[in-house]
């Protein structure tokens, strides 16, 4: 039960397994860092790299998050519009779907280098990559959602001669919401991956955690690399948290 979660965390039975796992993991890490100093930085040095330059990481995290969120938003708008078009017009579905499938099986991160050549070191190639990666799951899920209205429900409103717009607004879009949130859960981590990969391939770019990682690795500053990765992980968790909260708000009627 999600509502009892905060209380449940007081009980050791809930947090102890995780704490034990983290302790084992930390111990192994420290042992590894000690045995192979060129592979892993010691945890305290990662911590001090992070805490000593918080504003630096926050600034770069902001850039990466901005690219990820704008790319995701763009993908959302385009994919949603196309999904509506596809659910209303089978012709559009036959035209768009094969293209979308090809787009989906193509490893899109591979177009990052040419995009950087084309658009330079600014945010544009990062946003484009992110949208391309996020596009397909949103399109497919939303299309499925718009078509998920049960037949009897449609029939009731067809006998009132509801217009296609009325059916879309009152029946199809609300039915698609659970599918849409499922898509968001899939693409939120993908959006960060897209932004970071684009930053990595645009070495010398203006900022972002991907650039931080790329620059620091080339100078062998392992502590900085792992501090940036840690910040990326936190960012991913926060993004999922926002989506989960929005979902809980919007889908109170839904069972799951």
């Amino acid at each position, binding site marked *: 039960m999600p509502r009892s979660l905060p209380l449940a965390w007081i009980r050791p039975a809930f947090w102890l397994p995780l704490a034990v796992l983290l302790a084992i993991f930390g111990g192994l890490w420290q042992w590894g860092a000690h045995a192979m100093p060129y592979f892993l930085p010691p945890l305290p040095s990662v911590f001090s790299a992070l805490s000593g330059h918080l504003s630096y990481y926050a600034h770069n995290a902001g850039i990466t998050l901005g690219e990820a969120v704008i790319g995701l938003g763009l993908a959302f708008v385009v994919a949603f519009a196309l999904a509506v078009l596809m659910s209303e017009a089978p012709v559009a579905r036959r035209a768009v779907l094969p293209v979308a499938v090809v787009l989906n099986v193509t490893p899109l991160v591979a177009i990052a280098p040419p995009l950087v050549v084309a658009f330079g070191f600014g945010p544009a190639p990062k946003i484009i990559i992110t949208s391309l990666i996020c596009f397909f799951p949103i399109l497919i899920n939303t299309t499925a959602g718009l078509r998920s209205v*049960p037949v*009897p*429900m449609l*029939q*009731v*409103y*067809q*006998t*009132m*001669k*509801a*217009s296609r717009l*009325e059916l879309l607004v*009152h*029946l199809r879009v*609300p039915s698609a*919401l659970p599918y849409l949130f499922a898509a968001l859960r899939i693409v939120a981590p993908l959006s960060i991956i897209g932004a970071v990969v684009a930053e990595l391939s645009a070495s010398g770019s203006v900022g972002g955690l991907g650039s931080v990682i790329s620059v620091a690795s080339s100078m062998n500053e392992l502590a900085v690399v792992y501090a940036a990765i840690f910040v990326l992980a936190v960012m991913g968790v926060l993004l999922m948290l926002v989506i989960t909260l929005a979902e809980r708000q919007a889908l109170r*009627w*839904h*069972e799951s």
Partner: protein
Amino acid sequence: MPTAAIALSSVRKVYGDGPAATVALDGVDLAIAAGRFVSLIGPSGCGKSTLLRLVAGLEPADRGTVAVHGVTPDEACAAKLIGFVPQAPALLPWLSVLRNVTLPQKINRGAARQRARIEGLAARDSGPPDMRELLRKVGLGDALEKLPSQLSGGMRQRAAIVRAFGLRPDVLLMDEPFSALDEFTRESLQDQLLELWGEGSTTVLFVTHNIAEAVRLSDTVVVMAAGPGRIVESVDIGLPRPRGQQVFAERGFHEYEDLIREKLRGAWRSPDAA
């Protein structure tokens, strides 16, 4: 003679093509006067639900004509003459009960103009009915703000019936609306349906496979047979109204039940004889 509320003549409906084709309905003639309560009863595959969908304009007939108050089912839908209650309540799960039953008023706002063009319809006082009052009448007064998932099956179907009556339909089409409910819930919903129906001039076409239900509710029970789906006989039910639950104990009621059971049995046999 006034225009019938529902009129079918020589209707044929076929599903599929070639050798795999099934004749769902053939040679169906039916005329129902306004304000009557008519049940369609018959074995599965006799086309009773198909007939209902034709009248609802959800499917076209392959041959023959279907008319609702003298216009096509499509025009009747455009004028919101028709209320439809499917077997599953089909409420919108994201809307409260109250908003579920009031949503139809926001749909197809041009319907009143369409309705005014159709001749011979009962005049309507202005304004939509008080949906809160209707919900209270069927015992959903405490559930106005609840979501459908928080209601029992019987309560959901009540809300679906109120939604249909909220349109103040000239013709109410019901497709086995109580078949998923237990006996007690079913009987209490029959009470409420009769009460709501008794207040207006609505014509009801009610599909069921329950003989007792058909006899209790109807002015006329139309018996259908399968292979191909057709009408075998119409039985007028002469029991006085109101028909409360005491009707189940009356002898006349059981005589009608037996009569219809006999007709159904005959309908069941006839394809073999042919």
